[in-house]
Structures are given as structure tokens and as C-alpha cells.
């Protein structure tokens, strides 16, 4: 069975893929559907969904269009989730590869370093980093990457430990390939499937983290994000429930979809494991 067939066998993963596709579409179309800034006041504040035509999700405290915020927020969430995951991979993969490949003192030192970052409470560290660096897309991405790379390093290290004594690696060593070539060309490609699965789940966690930071008022002040929308709606929950419910459902669906897709990828990329389950 090929990859796509195995993926399609997992019904949840297909549902996830459809939801994710819609969110991506919304994010890509945001500048065309709502060319105006989502921060612009366009109507009376506190319009309930559907109360005035053209504003099918209503308006917020300042009379901004909730639908426009939702569309532009989708772009921000996906972008920050994706970039911070890439940065986390860029930190975690090399560290894990070096630790697993060379072992010994290098492994000890790198794993101590990783453990240190795993001990510090993730969210508290992210808050402190963003607060000190001043909130911006750059600082948010960096903070999320800094708190999420340790699992990557551990995973890659484990894979390297199990692969580095395989025959084809020994053979590569025998013909005199350099360490660099063995790591990059021989071992790394074979660690890809579990890393891809982990990465898809990390995007989901990163989106949750970003929304939590923006909820606390640590979002980039120039970009509209779902977390910010919920945070701003907190004080008016009694008058305008939709302001907090709508962006919350958006986050929930996106994160859920990414998790489902991740599980599907896991089944498709690791068929032996999937059958055992």
C-alpha cells in the first residue's frame, strides 16, 4: 500500500486535512476578501452575528469586523506556527544528530543542555522571553522555537542511536565518507518520518502557544490574531459572547485538524506501528 492510501484509511486524518485546507484557504484569501486592515472600525460596535448584512460574524468592542479579524488571524496563526516549528527543527535536529552520532562526552553535554530547557516550565519561559524582547512577530517565533526544540533533539538523538550501527552506515564509514556526509546523507534521511510526524504536532502546539501569548497581551501589536481577539473580548463576555466564542472555535478547529493530520501521517509513515495498534 502506498502512502496516500494508508493516509486515506484514517478517516479522522481526512477530516483534519479538509479542515486544515479550509483554514489555509481562508488565510490565503484574507487580503482579497477583506482588503482593509482588520483593525479599521467599520460599523457600530457590538453588532451580533447577522444583525447587519455584510457583517455575518458581527463587530467587536471597537466596531471592527470579526470576520475580517478571523481571516487575517488565520494567516498569522498558520505563519507563526509554521515558522517557529521550522526554527525549532533547525535547533533540535542538529543538536540531536550530533549527540546521537558522536555519543560520549558530546552526547552528555548536549543532553544536559536539552534537559535544562525541558525542566524550565515552557509557557513561563515563553512569557518571560517575549516580555523582555518586547512583543513582535520575531520575538514570538523565537520564544516558541526556544521552548519547543527539546523533544526534537531527543527524538533525533534516539533515531541516530538506533541507526548509526546499521550495516549501510558501517559501509559508508568503511569507504571513507566523512562524518558530515554520513550524518547528512546516510542517517538523516532515514530519521525523516518520525520528525515529520512530530513537526505536524508541533505546529499545532505552536499555534496554541501563540494564541495564549496574544491572549495575555503579548501578541505583535501590529497583527490581528485569534488569541488577541479572545483576550480583548474577555471583559465583555457577558454582553457579547460571540466575540470570544468565534475565534476560540477557529483555534480549536485548526489545532484539532493539525493533530488529526499528524496521527494520519504517523499511520501512513510508520505502517508497522499502525498495524500493531
Amino acid at each position: 500500500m502506498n502512502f496516500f492510501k494508508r493516509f486515506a484509511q484514517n478517516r479522522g486524518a481526512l477530516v483534519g486535512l479538509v479542515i486544515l485546507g479550509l483554514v489555509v484557504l481562508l488565510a490565503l484569501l484574507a487580503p482579497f476578501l477583506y482588503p482593509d486592515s482588520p483593525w479599521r472600525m467599520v460599523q457600530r460596535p457590538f453588532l451580533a452575528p447577522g444583525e447587519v448584512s455584510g457583517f455575518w460574524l458581527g463587530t467587536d468592542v471597537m466596531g471592527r469586523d470579526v470576520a475580517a479579524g478571523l481571516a487575517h488571524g488565520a494567516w498569522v496563526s498558520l505563519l507563526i506556527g509554521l515558522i517557529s516549528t521550522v526554527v525549532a527543527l533547525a535547533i533540535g535536529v542538529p543538536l540531536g544528530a550530533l549527540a546521537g552520532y558522536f555519543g560520549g562526552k558530546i552526547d552528555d553535554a548536549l543532553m544536559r543542555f536539552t534537559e535544562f530547557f525541558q525542566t524550565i516550565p515552557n509557557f513561563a519561559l515563553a512569557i518571560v522571553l517575549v516580555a523582555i524582547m518586547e512583543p513582535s512577530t520575531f520575538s514570538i517565533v523565537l520564544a516558541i522555537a526556544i521552548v519547543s526544540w527539546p523533544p526534537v533533539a531527543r527524538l533525533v538523538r534516539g533515531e541516530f542511536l538506533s541507526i548509526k550501527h546499521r550495516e549501510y552506515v558501517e559501509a559508508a564509514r568503511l569507504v571513507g565518507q566523512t562524518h558530515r556526509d554520513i550524518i547528512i546523507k546516510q542517517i538523516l534521511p532515514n530519521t525523516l518520518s518520525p520528525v515529520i510526524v512530530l513537526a505536524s504536532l508541533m505546529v499545532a502546539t505552536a499555534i496554541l502557544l501563540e494564541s495564549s501569548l496574544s491572549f495575555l497581551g503579548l501578541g505583535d501589536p501590529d497583527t490581528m490574531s485569534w488569541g488577541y481577539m479572545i483576550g480583548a473580548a474577555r471583559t465583555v463576555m457577558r454582553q457579547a459572547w460571540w466575540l470570544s466564542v468565534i475565534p476560540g472555535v477557529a483555534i480549536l478547529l485548526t489545532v484539532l485538524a493539525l493533530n488529526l493530520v499528524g496521527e494520519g501521517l504517523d499511520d501512513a509513515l510508520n505502517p508497522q506501528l499502525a498495524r500493531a495498534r
Partner: protein
Amino acid sequence: MAYVSLILGRVGKAVIVLLAILVFNFFLIHAAPGDPAAVMAGEAGATDQQFLDDLRERFGLDQPLPVQLWRYMSGVLQLDFGYSYRQQMPVLDLILDRLPATLLLTGAAFCISLLFGIIAGTLAAMRAKRPSGSIIMGLALLFYATPLYWVAMMAVLVFSVTLDWLPAYGYSTVGADYTGLAHVGDVAVHLMLPALTLGLFFMAVYTRMTRTSMLSVSQQDFVKTARAKGLAPGVIQRRHILRNALLPIITLAGLQAGQMVGGAVLTETVFAWPGIGRLMYEALMQRDYNLLLGIFFFCALLVILFNMLTDVIYRLADPRIKQGAT
């Protein structure tokens, strides 16, 4: 004797981590944009030149960096976390004042999530091939994907605003001045929503862990033996599978519990729960970095204490584990 050296080893490791966090904190203050004195004072003090000069004098900011680091570290070791110029109180007093509320909240959330997580996970593992098992796992996935603060807000919307069953915020009824049992009951009612919403995410995590762990244990040989002996399935589930499946859960639960302290920042903010999470939010709003870093240090301290505690529990639960086996 083995236990003593084991505990000493753990404590030594914890001390190293805490010292590393202090160094980290120190460099964070210096990495912040602007004058460290202004950073420590919060932006309020920035207007008063005399005040800033006093600060520079006091923290030796005109000294070379290593000297400053030494001053900072020795200050903390003497339990001097500095002064919050925004709240006009020493940082340590502020934190200690709020700590019990956070311990109560995270402790309650931890117990709730672990108990219900293990029950749900066990049920899901026993019904792995039936719809009821899938429903449990579906719910777990749903809670896993829901933002913590949003669940908290929705809980307020449903149980406080709409149904009016439980109070929406605070630690106790303002102005009621209950004493004795009435006070305990009052706090318990206020604790209900924050603890449940904080616990929900972790319950989902524990449910998934328990199910995976139980399914992997149930494939082992001694379970087959038990089945072959003709033991009742319920007995096998409880005595053979669950007991062995619980061990890795204890370790992972300890690691996850540390993250609960971070989650408390969100829950306490929504419910105006007077713990260090709420204090962290206040420090954020007021750009009170000195207080923020003090709280950060205490969060890490709590995590380390929690991990050590679960380590001890783990060893008590499984006498087979020997020193150095990790």
C-alpha cells in the same frame, strides 16, 4: 545509604539547574532593551534620575559584568529577589503571599486530571475496539486541542453567567468573612471552575498516556499467562495490566505537572485567582521585570520540586528500580 546518596545526587542536580536559571535571568535583564536600572525599576521609575542613580549604585551597574553577576547571585542566595517598585513591596514577599493559592489550584487540578485521566484511559484501553472507546479518545483529543484560557472563559459563560451555579472569579466571597468550615466550603466552591478547567487539558494528556501504556502492557507475556490461567478479564485489567501500566504514567505525569504551573498563568488570569500566575500577568501588564523574573524562578523551583517528588513516589511504587538505573 543508597537512598541518601540518591537524594543528594538529585538535590545537587536541582541546585545546578536553579543556578543556571539565575544566570539566565541575569542575562535576560541585560538583554532587555534599554538601561538595566530602568528595566529593574519598571518604566515608572524611569523619569526620576536620582532614583535610577540609586539603583545603579545599589546593584553596582557601573561594575564589570562578572561582579554584577556575583552580586545578583549572592543576593538571591540570601533570599533577596529585589524590590518591586510598582507594587512597593519586596518581590519575595509578593510571591510568598500568592504561593499558597497557586499550590492549592495546581494541586487540585493535578489530582483531578490524574484520577479522571487514568480512569478514562483505562476504559478506553478496555474498549479499544468498541465505539465507546473511540468516543473517549475523541473527547480527549478535543480537550487536548482546546486553548486552556478559552475553556476557562466558556466555563464562566456556561456555569456562572448562564446557569449561575458557580462563582466566576476570586478566591472567596468578598466581604462575607466566613470562618472555619464555611470558609473552606466557600473557597472550595470558588476553586471548582479554575481547577476543572486547568485540569481538563492535562486530563486529556493522561488519558492518552494511560491508554497507550495499558495497550502496550497488555501485549506482554505475563498477561498472556494470566489469560491462559483463566483469570477473569477484570482481574487481569486491574491487577496485571493497570498496575504495570501506571509506572511510566507516574514519571510522565511528574514532567507534565511542571507545565501546569505555566498553565496556571492563564487560568488564574481568567478567574482572577490570587496566585503567582495572576501575579505574573500583573507584572507583565506593568512591565515589572524584576517581579517577572522572580516569579519565573519560583515556577522553575516548583517544577523541580514536583519532579523530585514524583521521582520518590516512583521509587516507592516500584522497588525494582535501583539507584542509577535511570
